[in-house]
């Protein structure tokens, strides 16, 4: 009953405000930036079914994304993690910035991505998969004390091809707390809306409110052991449902492709966009 009430609050909440069509990816980035002055808040989780004898985990995280300009988007993450038979812990924060060097649409559009992570080894949101597969056997009490300060960069390439978005991300990460060399990873995705034409009806289940696709992501080792050996890779469908003008639900069950991967990851998220926030704040502060 309580769950049903929450569902309808979420669905009806979508009737407020106005927003934009969302990419359904969880890991892959496209060239579409947050609109200048808009704030998007998303609550997501990554739930994992690990290999036998390891506990299940769920890693919730909050994203606050803001369009500083039309070509500069900044985003703050706060994340946690809980495991069956273990504790729930706060696993840290991330601050990312994306810059789009070219204003116009091209056949291939590029975005530069820079992120600083102040996390611990308990982090399992898996916003990117880099380096070699890591074991997840130590208890949370131990993992929470192993801090990692990491710098991450991505080259994001993204194209629009016959209503499909096709995006490729190349990732380089450096752990400043340990000598692991530079770690590499990738993410590739493609999606399209279910309907090419928008219907005139005011409907929640129209095809234009759904985007579907797939994404593939994984690690490529590091400067110390480059390649696919002992790496984790995931492949899964992605679905996004634009519930209302400003809210969307996202879902992606992904299967692990290698022994180093969790057999199954289930990702889900809910996002809400506040449009024109920057202009309103500026107005309140007496700006024009």
């Amino acid at each position, binding site marked *: 009953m309580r769950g049903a009430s929450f569902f309808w609050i979420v669905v009806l909440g979508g009737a407020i405000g*106005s*927003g*934009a*069509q969302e*990419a359904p990816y969880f890991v892959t980035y*496209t060239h*579409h*930036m947050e*609109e*200048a002055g808009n704030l998007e808040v998303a609550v997501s989780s990554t739930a994992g079914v690990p290999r036998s004898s390891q506990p299940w985990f769920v890693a919730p995280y909050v994203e606050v994304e803001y369009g500083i*300009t*039309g*070509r500069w988007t900044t985003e703050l993450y706060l994340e946690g993690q809980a495991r069956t038979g273990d504790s729930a812990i706060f696993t840290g924060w991330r601050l990312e910035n994306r810059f*789009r060097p070219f*204003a*116009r*649409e091209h056949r291939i559009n590029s975005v530069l991505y820079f992120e600083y992570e102040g996390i611990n080894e308990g982090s399992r949101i898996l916003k990117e998969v880099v380096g070699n597969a890591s074991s997840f056997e130590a208890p949370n009490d131990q993992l929470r004390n192993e801090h990692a300060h990491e710098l991450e960069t991505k080259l994001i390439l993204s194209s*629009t091809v*016959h*209503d499909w*978005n096709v995006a490729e991300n190349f990732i380089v990460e450096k752990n400043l707390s340990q000598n692991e060399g530079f770690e590499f990873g990738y993410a590739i995705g493609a999606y*399209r*809306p279910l*309907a*090419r*034409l*928008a*219907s*005139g*009806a*005011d409907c929640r289940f129209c095809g*234009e409110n759904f985007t579907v696709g797939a994404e593939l992501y994984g690690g490529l080792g590091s400067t110390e052991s480059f390649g696919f050996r002992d790496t984790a890779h995931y492949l899964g469908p992605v679905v996004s449902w634009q519930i209302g*003008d400003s809210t969307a639900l996202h879902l992606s069950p992904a299967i692990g492709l290698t022994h180093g991967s969790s057999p199954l990851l289930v990702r889900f998220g809910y996002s809400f966009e506040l*449009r*024109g926030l920057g*202009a309103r704040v500026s107005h309140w502060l007496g700006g024009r």
Partner: protein
Amino acid sequence: MTARAAFLIAALAAIGLAQNIDYRQDSKWRAPESAAVRGNPLAGREDAVAGGRKLFQRHCVECHGADGTGRKKAANLTLPVVQAQPDGVLHWKITNGNPDRGMPSFSRLPELQRWQIVLYLRTFKQP
């Protein structure tokens, strides 16, 4: 002056101020010739206008206003300087945006939905 007349004048002044009647085009925001000559594949499709209206309300109203007259620095879409532009130019501008001047790119929308928005923009044309 009666209170009703004062209110009417104030209301008209507010409407006038809300409209972006001073809109000036960005001279650097020009569609290439290849885009400008493209025709709207949905031209004459009256059934597609309602979908265009829905898309406009979802993506454009925040800046351009429900009546298209423009808020903040956004274009007043009812002005001849906008309505005189070919469909292909408007489609190109919706697709590419002008991010340095506040107009986002809507390339994330399917091609036909962008044409639907162009179709709906034509309903703002003043006789």
